[in-house]
Each structure stands twice: as structure tokens, then as C-alpha cells.
């Protein structure tokens, strides 16, 4: 039996952030009923498409049921009301105008369904100005500060970066939404009462930078327009090795000694004070280190050198790509990928001894579960 079995969640979300929140809860056995508008979820259009099915939808909607409902029609809204009457939670990611139009405004819902946990995901939260309620992930990454500071040591001539793929801020938002919803559902079990959760996607981005930005807010660090404000100033970076890339980060003299050891204590390294990382980490020294480290690391094989570094407690890590992770022995050991319906799904990062995440069904076709959900 899974952690959330017996809990029913209605998902009217039509973006990846809301669908991801639903998927994380469905992972634990909640019955997530996805209501799709005629034409199907807009996320079905995201490629690549294989056998006519969009990969993003397939990935974000496992373990869910689908019913197509026309919310513009009176009958559709009546059906939604019936479903909400027996549901434990609602997850939505539309703007306040849309919600109001369909009778899904928070105040309205809490009055009609006092037991319902209602999680509403919007770019800047409910109290933002009218023109703040529609944003794509790139806008969220921009407004939340990570894009401006990515990559580290940005060249002012290069554009900021939104992150990996198309939806990274959506996955972060979905995670916080699922977390707050699950917490509120625990309270519902104990009190029988619902709550409204107003989740801001940009605030998620900001929350993920808490100790970096917190020091700026408090005046420990000067706020500035520098692209390098979030950087650490050490030698950490991606380096090319013989057969790929590695990432090195070093902060202590013990790590420096470990690195010197695996390099065979070259003469150039003796020019650096033993405690340079802690006390003498000037930009010049960082540049000099990198310049002399590069030829050596370029001659090393990725997997060998990173394992040798681990033995010396040096955080030198392989820069893995998708094929590396599929083949990764630790991922295999933990069962990170789960096979379902002939496809290989990345699953959760938490292995749980009593209520593990389990993928039971592939993403539904539109309206696949009408008969079961609406008998």
C-alpha cells in the first residue's frame, strides 16, 4: 500500500508545473484524475513524438486517469463540481482570471468545498499585478534570478541561460506544490479541513537561492548587477578530459593535497600556498591553477580520474549525459529507471523502505477513464 492511496486529487492543470505536481502525488498512490479540455492537454504537443505520443506528456502523467471535460459548458462545470465534492485536493496552474470565469476562484472553492486542499500554481502568486499571471519557464528563470547568474563566471556578451531543457523551473515548482499539498493533506486527515495554497513559481526559484540571496538581502553581500554575484570565486569549473568532461570543485587544503597527490605532485603545484583555497584564493591564482591543471586533466580518462579523486576526497565528478545515467551502476542498484510499457522512466530520488514510488500505468489517452471516473 502506498503513502497516498485512498486520496483523490483532481488536476485541472494544463502546464508542466501542475502536471508534475500531480505526477509526484500519483507516484505515491493518490488517485489523480486529470481533467483535459476538448483537444487534450496542451502539454501533449511537446515533442519528441514517438508513435504519435508526446514524450513530455507521457513522462509527466504516469499513474493518472484522464477525463475530457468542456469547462466552458454548464454541464462540464457541473461535472467538475461533482468531482470536487468527492475529491481531497485540486491542483491547478491557470491564472486568476480563468479560475474566476469558471467558478474556481479560491474563495469560491473554499466556501463550497471546505474540506478541499486547493493548490494554485501561478508565476508570481495570487496577489501579483494582472500582467504577471502568464509566464513561460524561461520568464520564470529570468524573473527568479538564476538565469542572470548562469553559468558561473558569465561572460557579459553571452545571454543568460534558462537551465536544462525546456521545463526546469516547472519541475522545481511542481515539487514545492506537491510538498505543500501533501502537507496540507496530512492536516486534512487530522482535522477534516481544507486549505488554499498559493504557490509562486518565481518564489520557488528565489527559495532555491536562500543562502546566496539571503546574504544580499541582509547586507552581508552587496546587491549588484553583476552576473557573478552568485559565484563562489574558487577554481570550480567544467574541464575537458580525454573522453568527455569533468567538474572540479575545491575548497579546502585537504582537497588540494588530494588533487596534488593524484596528479603526482607536479612542480607547478608547489608554487601554490598549501592553504591557498581557504586564504589566498585570488582570481590570478585561480586562473593560474586552471591553466596548469588543464593539460593534465585533458590527458586523463573521465571514469578513472574521478574514481581516483573520490579515493582522496577530491570532489572531481564526471559530467554525465543521458547514456551515462542509463548505464550508471548506482542508478541500476537503486532502480532509478523503471520500465513500463516498453519505455524506460526515470523515477524518484527517494528510495523508501515501506511506501516506495511505483509506476503502475502509463500516461492515459484523452478521456481514457471516463467510464470509471463518471459511472
Amino acid at each position, binding site marked *: 500500500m502506498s503513502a497516498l*492511496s*485512498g486520496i483523490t486529487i483532481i488536476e485541472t492543470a494544463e502546464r508542466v508545473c501542475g502536471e508534475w505536481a500531480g505526477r509526484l502525488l500519483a507516484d*505515491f498512490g493518490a488517485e489523480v484524475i486529470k481533467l483535459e479540455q476538448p483537444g487534450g492537454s496542451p502539454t501533449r504537443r511537446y515533442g519528441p513524438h514517438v508513435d504519435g505520443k508526446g*514524450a*513530455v506528456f507521457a*513522462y509527466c502523467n504516469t499513474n493518472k486517469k484522464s477525463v475530457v471535460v468542456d469547462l466552458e459548458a454548464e454541464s462540464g462545470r457541473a461535472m467538475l463540481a461533482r468531482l470536487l465534492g468527492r475529491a481531497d485536493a485540486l491542483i491547478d496552474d491557470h491564472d486568476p482570471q480563468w479560475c474566476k470565469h469558471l467558478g474556481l476562484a479560491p474563495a469560491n472553492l473554499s466556501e463550497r468545498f471546505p474540506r478541499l486542499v486547493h493548490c494554485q500554481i501561478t508565476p508570481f*502568486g495570487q*496577489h501579483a499585478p494582472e500582467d*504577471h499571471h502568464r*509566464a513561460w519557464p524561461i*520568464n520564470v528563470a*529570468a524573473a*527568479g534570478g*538564476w538565469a542572470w547568474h*548562469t553559468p558561473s563566471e558569465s561572460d557579459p556578451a553571452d*545571454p*543568460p*541561460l*534558462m537551465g536544462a*531543457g525546456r521545463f526546469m523551473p516547472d*519541475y*522545481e515548482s511542481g*515539487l*514545492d506544490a506537491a510538498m*505543500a499539498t*501533501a*502537507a496540507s493533506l496530512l492536516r486534512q486527515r*487530522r482535522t477534516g479541513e481544507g*486549505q488554499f*495554497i498559493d504557490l*509562486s*513559481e518565481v518564489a520557488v526559484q*528565489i*527559495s*532555491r*537561492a*536562500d543562502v*546566496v*540571496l*539571503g546574504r544580499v*538581502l*541582509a547586507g552581508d553581500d552587496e546587491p549588484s*548587477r*553583476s552576473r557573478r554575484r552568485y559565484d*563562489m570565486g574558487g577554481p*570550480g569549473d*567544467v574541464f575537458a578530459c580525454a573522453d568527455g*568532461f569533468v567538474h572540479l570543485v575545491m*575548497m579546502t587544503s585537504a582537497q588540494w593535497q588530494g588533487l596534488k597527490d593524484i596528479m603526482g605532485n607536479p612542480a607547478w603545484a608547489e608554487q601554490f600556498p598549501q592553504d591557498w583555497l581557504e586564504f589566498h584564493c585570488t582570481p590570478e591564482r585561480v586562473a593560474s591553477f586552471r591553466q596548469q591543471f588543464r593539460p593534465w586533466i585533458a590527458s586523463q580518462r573521465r571514469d578513472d580520474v574521478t574514481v581516483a579523486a573520490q579515493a582522496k576526497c577530491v570532489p572531481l565528478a564526471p559530467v*554525465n*549525459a543521458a*547514456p551515462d545515467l542509463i548505464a550508471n551502476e*548506482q542508478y541500476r542498484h537503486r532502480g532509478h529507471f523503471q520500465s513500463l510499457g516498453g*519505455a524506460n*522512466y*526515470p523515477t524518484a*530520488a*527517494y*528510495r*523508501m523502505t515501506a511506501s516506495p514510488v511505483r509506476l503502475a500505468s502509463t500516461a492515459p489517452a484523452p478521456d481514457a477513464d471516463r467510464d470509471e471516473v463518471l459511472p
Partner: protein
Amino acid sequence: MSYRQRGGPLAGVRVLAVAKVWAGPYAAKLLAQLGAEVIKVESASALDEMRAYGGVDIEHAPYFLSQNTEALSVRVNLKSAEGIAQLKKMIAVSDIVLDNLRPGALDKLGLSYEAMKAIRPDIIHVSIKMYGSDGPLGYQTGYAPSFAAIGGLTSLVGHEGKVPRGMNIRYGDTTAGAAAAFGAIAALHHRERTGEGQQVDLSAVEAISGLVGDSLFAFGLTGEPPVHRGNTHDELSPHGFFPTRNNGWISIACDGDEEWRALADELGLAEPADDPRFTTHESRCLNRSALEAELGRLTKALDGSDLARRLRARGVAAWPAASSLDLMSEDLFWSNGTFRMVINGNGDARPVVGSSWRIEPDGAELERGAPTLGEHDEYVYRELLGLDEDEYAALKASGAIS
């Protein structure tokens, strides 16, 4: 019993945080933001490194103060047998033990999950390790950028044609912490239903893979390894960052031809509809470099905030890329609790980053900032564990509380 009634959905849940640096304390903070009572186990002889970063005064350490909102602090010397004995008593009165020490560190103290279970059968042990708690690579350790590199994020973040250098070096700890906090709450549900506790064994590296999951999944379907592609989005065009006045950058995303025409019109692009290179989404994708160059030429002279407002008024999603100065100057974040004031254990008021959600009714009160070392010794030892004055004094004298 709790130190203070703060409300919130996790009111009544107690978390014992044997956690340091960033990912573990962040997970604890999220649970505290949801109303849990977080007790941070500390010791003068084994400080959270965050108390040492950025200065010598452990009660005014910038990193530590930026993070440990509403945490209580209890001193326990884990190098003393008596300290360990007290820690076991704390486990007995906690719902969750959150640990991000090095792999095997708690085991060596006689506090494996099995041992904790013997103390409290329904305990939830949340373990945060770089690669998980066991397995062939479970011994490995690293920092956030190591998680990002191993988990497949770094290779997918970079400018086209250049070496992928990944997200900013700070990215990763908090994502892992959030995944751990969610796992902890799922475990609370399971316990509520069945009475059974469990171990939540988080791999920070896999939490990172969760940010690129659709790319990993698509690779399995198509056999085409995903690569970094700057800010490209196959379904939106134009889509990217464009230069604005004073070295600014604006993010612009157009969904469909209508939004594209609105953008072109607002920028005064000459006869956009008639330029066959840009008429349709397909042609815009095909001529992406030319399109981006053309747009950049026009946006370069404009003020980013003003342009963003004008574009949004035309239905085009556009925001300037915010610097730390922009973020802290944004009134909305101060008014909606994204930034908020707390009172630290040291007595100072301090602005901190708040939660990403507002919950009504009965959201958790967030008024206290980071604790001073051992600020809540008295509460934990005297009230929670029920020690009398003499026993408490003896523990202090022996160094078990230090």
C-alpha cells in the same frame, strides 16, 4: 508538547535535524515553513560549517542566519557516550530524523536506521547523501556542483557550440533538500495510515536528474542523446534572451504567429509578416539565428523593464533577467512574503527568503530566524526529555552538552 504553537499543516510534527551545510538544513527549513518543529542538533566541537562561513562569530554567520528560520538549536556532543545517549532519547520523542552527514557517519555512532527503529519503531529516517546510502557508489561524496554534473544537469546547460558549463555553481543543494522534504511528508502519510515508519533514502544526484527527467526519458524513446542548446525551445519561437540597454537581457517567449506578429509590431520590425524567413513557426525555427540577430538589433537600445511591460500588454510573455539588485528591489517580493523579516536568536532582525507558498487559513507562523548555539537546550533537555535540574547540570559539567 511543542516549544511554540506556530500553526501550519505540519503542526505537531517534530523533526530532529542532524544536518549540516545546505541540503539537509534546507529540507529542515521547508518542513519548518510548513509548521513542523525542527530541532537542530549542534555542538561547539562539530559546528554546522555554515556557522563558520563568512566570519568568525558563529552567532552572526551570514550563511547560517540566511537559512535556519524557525529552527531550534540543542547542543549534543556526539563524541561523548552520554551525548549519544541523550540523542537517542531525542529520537524517541521525534517523528523524523533528518541526516545529511557523510555516508556511514550515523552508523558509526550506533545510530543506523535499524538502531533508531529499536528506539522508536515508527521513526522516519530521512537520509540525504550524494548518491544514496548504499550501493556500489554510495561511498562517494561531493558538493552541489558535483550532484549537478553527475545527475546529468550540467551537460544540458550551456551556450550552443560552447562547452556546457552547467547551472550557476550554487545550484543543486536546495533541489535535493526539497525532494527530501517531500519524501518525508509522504512517509508521514504512510505512518498516519498504517502506523509504520520507514527510511527515506535520498540521492541528491537523482534529485538533480529529476530536473532533466523528460530529456532522459526521451533519450530512451528516440535513442538520440540530448545535448545543450542554449535557450532553444522547439515549440516556441522566438524564444530566448535578447540584449537590452545597459547590458541588460530580456526573456521573450512567443507562442504562435499571433504573438510573433505582436512582438514584431511592438519592436517596429519592418514588414515582419512579409518576410518568408519568419512567417511561420517552422520558418522561424529554421532561420533562428537570423531571427535572433534581427531582434537583438532592435532590443539592444531599449530599456528592458519598459519593453517587458509593453510586450506583456500585447500578450507576449517577457521579463528582464533579474540581478540580485533587481530581486531585492522588487516590492512584490517584500509584500507577499517571498522576502520577510525574522528575529534571530541573537536578537537581531534580519530579512530572509521565505517560503514559495502562502497557505490559508492556518499557515505556519514564520517569525523567528536562526537560533544561537544551544538556545533551546533548556527546552529540549528539561521539558522534552524531562531531566531534572541536577541531571541537566551534570550533563553540562561532563561536556555531553557542549
